[in-house]
């Protein structure tokens, strides 16, 4: 309803028409809401239910209530050490992504002029480069005859190829950083692009050093983006079971690979479900912490 129509038609019919319009607009969301309800909400609720019943293994379930899936998952010392490994790997990945991505985003946003869009486009290309191909690509770099070993051999720094580069937790870390760095750069660059350039010039005009205008202007204004990038990388790395499977050694199991094994190998869905809900609990805490920093910054 336009304002003019409302004034001529009088307030009451206008309000009614707006209400009707609201309802019809809401109707448009129905198909998508139905799909989300049936293929997201229902499965998650069923998974939650499963996490409280007894699993007999090999896909057999017994419909009696129990908390043991959760208590077992929390008590198991193996789980505990794998949980520490998973979350520290995820936090390390997110930190390195920011350490590599922040200066790069800064350079792209504030130092490049004509090449800025091209550089950002290249980052998008990298983001959309097949995830599996990017994982596999590290075989050609870290493998026994890979780029690094060949280079070291050519320089006569080593006689025999180094075997521990691939199939280790370091390979997993490098691949994770490679996969999530483009996300980080794009999130940070978009945060930096929204800083008005006058703000930086003014701070310099008022006598701030380059370092001061960075710590007083750029850093505070990009903190929400920084925190968001960290949280996103942290959550998606913790939930990744493909990278450890391809690049990790025998000791590189993560929580995600345990959940997968419970479902695919052992058929103990309740145990896997409980573990995955414990993971989601950690993610929820991370997301809530993120939204708190945002409120604190007044953004």
């Amino acid at each position: 309803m336009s304002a003019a129509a409302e004034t001529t038609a009088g307030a009451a019919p206008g309000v009614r028409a707006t209400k009707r319009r609201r309802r019809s607009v809401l109707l448009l969301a129905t198909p998508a809401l139905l799909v989300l309800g049936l293929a997201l909400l229902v499965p998650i609720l069923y998974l939650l239910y499963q996490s409280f019943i007894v699993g007999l293994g090999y896909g057999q379930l017994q419909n009696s209530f129990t908390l043991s899936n959760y208590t077992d998952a929390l008590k198991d010392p193996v789980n505990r050490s794998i949980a520490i490994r998973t979350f520290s790997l995820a936090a390390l990945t997110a930190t390195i992504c920011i350490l590599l991505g922040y200066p790069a985003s800064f350079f792209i946003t504030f130092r490049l002029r004509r090449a800025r869009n091209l550089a950002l486009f290249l980052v998008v290309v990298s983001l959309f480069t097949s995830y599996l191909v990017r994982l596999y690509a590290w075989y050609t770099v870290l493998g026994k005859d890979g780029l690094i070993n060949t280079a070291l051999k050519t320089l006569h720094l080593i006689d025999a190829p180094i075997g521990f580069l691939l199939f280790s937790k370091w390979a997993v870390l490098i691949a994770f950083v490679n996969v999530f760095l483009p996300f980080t750069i794009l999130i940070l660059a978009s945060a930096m692009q929204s800083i008005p350039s006058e703000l930086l010039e003014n701070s310099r005009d008022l006598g701030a050093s380059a370092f001061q205008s960075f710590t007083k202007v750029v850093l505070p204004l990009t903190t929400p983006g920084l925190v968001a990038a960290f949280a996103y990388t942290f959550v998606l790395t913790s939930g990744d079971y493909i990278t450890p499977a391809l690049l990790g050694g025998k000791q590189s199991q993560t929580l995600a690979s345990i959940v997968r094994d419970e479902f695919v190998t052992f058929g103990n869905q309740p145990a896997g479900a409980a573990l995955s809900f414990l993971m989601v609990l950690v993610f929820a805490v991370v997301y809530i912490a993120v939204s708190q920093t945002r409120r604190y910054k007044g953004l």
Partner: protein
Amino acid sequence: MSARRQSWGLAFYTAFVFAFLFVPVLMVVLFSFNKTASFTFPFHGWSFQWYRSVFSSPDYRGAIWASLKVALVTVLIVASIGTLAAIAVTRYTSRGREVLRSVFLVPAALPGLFLGIALLSLFIRTKTDLSLGTATVGHVIYTLPYFFLVASSRLLRFDPLLEESARDLGASWWTTFRKVTLPIIAPALIAGALVVFSLSWDEVLITFFTIGSQNTLPLLIYSKVKQASDPSINAISTLLLTGSLVFIVGVRKFVVDIQS
């Protein structure tokens, strides 16, 4: 002077970051043309034999078809329900709007593992046979938020008065949508559809749980890499890569159209 030096330092750092992102992938492309079966160095000369073996292998051809089918159906479903949802959220003028918006973004905040096992449990419970169809369900849920974001960001930037004038002049809702809204948001919808296609084309984390005995292209590559036996992995990887690249260049074209 020092600012100059600092800029050079940053430039080198950034160059390193780009090298880190691209060198491994470029190696794969290079070795896809290698004459011998070695995965890695030394490079023995150029040949197309691995591409020939990809196209003559029924495994690969089947997987390419499966991936195409899943991606196309996903795009069709997501584009239709996602467009309507984006219109609803951007044109709905009430407090429920933010809630609705967050609801549509939820799947993007959850790891694929979680979506995969949740769907798998339900499929087991309802005795649904796993197939390309069940895999498509997972892809729809996974890609919907991204399409929604692209479509609604365009809708937010265009003047609703254009629609209202059409309505005031007597056009029906459907005519307004067809003659006013759709032409304006079409480039964004195409960009969104391309994003959905390349996400679906590439998905492994959810597909692993929901597809059953069939293989999409990424799943086939996953099993080949695990066996580390097939030198045509480089060639098929390069093809997969070229596919997403073509799509992303397409997206760029449409995004530029949107901005101009």
